[in-house]
């Protein structure tokens, strides 16, 4: 059972680690000379930043899956939409510095013989508008999708599969050049944001810090939700949806609210991801990406929030390391990791950490149950 305090022990540790990361990572990167053993090389900063955005995506998945039982196999879609929103802004920021030097149109539009900016690109040169879209586009899609799906009582694998269909359809749609979203190449070659080049160390550090901040806030938001009465209803919906209805809860509304919040979180994650990796393309919509996000949560421990974030960072760290260290064998290692986690850590990595709690619980429970019902 989840603890009811807003921030429990694990939460404090988690937030403390985040705060430390915000101070230490950019600090060690910017302040120490490159030959110092504690120096964090520049390439690591956006890499770590990327992990944090994945962690935020994992939180979003865990919120709906861990607490409300909605197994989304399409959360990558919201992530990608958030990414595209910010990517569109970054494209507009390039201005006349594109290879075709068109002040108005991004290169790929010139290339497609476009004469003027498509309507849906309007306004993206204005950062606040783009930022709003980061929330609104995934939010609106989630709202429309959720409105119909939850009202129609699509549940379980049926819901999972149509979320997958959703992201797959978007993959194909964004893939089409007729969408004027850059086709298969997507959006890339970004230059700067707020006039500051994306490649400067300061910018990298800021984006990293921003990702950490977003992750922290995301965590607090999730904790707030799951520890509120709303969260208790969510768990009830997860375990006994039908029974919950008979208690007078409009289950579809609960699902819709948490679904939209989660989609927006994923959108923010995507928006922070794109400037740090420098590209957004339809590949982000691929169903495999969404499944991977679910895998991170499962590895870390479903329904634990901290575990989801931890899982995302660990799996991706493992992937980074293994693809470099064992380029020909890493799939065995990663695949094996997933199997081992399921077999030996049924509650994910958090289950392992949590077992310390359970030792405590064990002793107390033993006393309580020693005498059954009076």
């Amino acid at each position: 059972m989840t603890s009811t305090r807003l921030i429990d022990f694990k939460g404090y540790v988690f937030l403390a680690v985040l705060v430390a990361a915000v101070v230490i990572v950019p600090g060690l990167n910017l302040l120490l000379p490159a030959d110092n053993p504690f120096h964090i090389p520049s390439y690591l900063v956006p890499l770590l930043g990327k992990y944090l955005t994945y962690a935020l995506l994992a939180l979003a998945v865990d919120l709906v899956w861990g607490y409300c039982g909605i197994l989304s196999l399409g959360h990558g879609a919201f992530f990608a939409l958030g990414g595209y929103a910010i990517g569109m802004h970054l494209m507009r920021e390039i201005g006349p510095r594109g290879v075709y030097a068109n002040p108005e149109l991004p290169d790929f539009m010139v290339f497609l013989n476009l004469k003027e900016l498509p309507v849906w690109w309007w306004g993206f040169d204005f950062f606040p508008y783009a930022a709003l879209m980061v929330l609104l586009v995934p939010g609106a899609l989630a709202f429309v999708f959720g409105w119909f799906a939850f009202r129609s009582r699509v549940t379980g694998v049926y819901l999972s599969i149509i979320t997958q269909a959703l992201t797959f359809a978007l993959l194909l749609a964004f893939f089409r050049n007729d969408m004027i979203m850059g086709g298969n190449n997507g959006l890339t070659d970004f230059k700067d944001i707020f006039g500051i080049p994306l490649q400067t160390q300061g910018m990298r550090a800021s984006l990293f810090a921003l990702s950490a901040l977003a992750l922290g806030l995301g965590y607090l938001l999730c904790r707030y939700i799951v520890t509120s009465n709303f969260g208790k209803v969510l768990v009830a919906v997860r375990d006994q949806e039908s029974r919950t209805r008979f208690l007078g809860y409009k289950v579809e509304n609960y699902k819709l609210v948490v679904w939209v919040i989660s989609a927006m979180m994923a959108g923010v994650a995507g928006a922070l991801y794109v400037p740090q990796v420098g590209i957004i393309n339809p590949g982000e919509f691929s169903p495999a990406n969404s499944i991977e996000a679910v895998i991170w949560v499962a590895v870390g421990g479903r329904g634990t929030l901290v575990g989801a974030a931890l899982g995302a960072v660990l799996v991706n760290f493992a992937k980074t390391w293994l693809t470099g260290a064992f380029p020909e064998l890493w799939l065995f290692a990663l695949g094996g990791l997933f199997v081992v986690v399921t077999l030996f850590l049924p509650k994910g990595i958090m289950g392992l950490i949590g077992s310390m709690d359970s030792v405590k619980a064990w002793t107390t429970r033993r006393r309580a149950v020693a005498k059954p019902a009076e």
Partner: protein
Amino acid sequence: MDQKISPELLYLNDVSVVFDGFRALNSLSLTIGEKEMRAIIGPNGAGKTTMMDVITGKTRPTVGTALFDGGVHDLTRLDEATIAGLGIGRKFQTPTVIENHDVETNVELALKADKGPFAKLFSRRTPQVQERIDEILERVRLKNARHRRAGDLSHGQKQWLEIGMLLAQEPKLLLVDEPAAGMTDAETADTAVLLREIAETRSVVVVEHDMIFVRDLDVKVTVLHEGSVLAEGSLDHVSSNERVIEVYLGR
């Protein structure tokens, strides 16, 4: 709008439910008044649970009317949550509780309150709420199990928990499907007492096969058989009915 067009709290008329050609309910008509308690008995498969399904919105009748609160609400058009919100609470035949929540939280979730998502988002457990929970747990004798996972309870304990949740809902109409199943004789008697108390302020429909329990309730009895009413009246009256003996009580 909220004009009551009849005095009954619950009004079922000519309700039929057909599953693949099988008539689980067959032109069933039944009314329950305000603050009335009614016992419903009848053979296995007579349609008692199905009737409750119709009232609570779980099953849509093939034909027929189901009105609530003096005809103001048409139950056949509302979903389960709305019906529950109108004040119809239900205890299921096989006890169903929220297994992963503790006993306390199960009761808390059932408590009468604004059950919209935003209201719940901004609310936490207050001392008043705690008090109310304690009161109910006291009544169903689960105070010592308050922090146990509901799924770990024994069968009978779950039955009690469900009754507690029903109390917490403070519904106008309680539908109680086999409350005494799996309870000891003493507990059964206690349940009867509890239901009689409740019926002083609310309407109650009880389904039971335990005749001693039904006798304890001391209310009008309706006998269902093959989806429609076979007999109605006091327990003594119906149990002397030949047909009732033949199809239900046995010799």
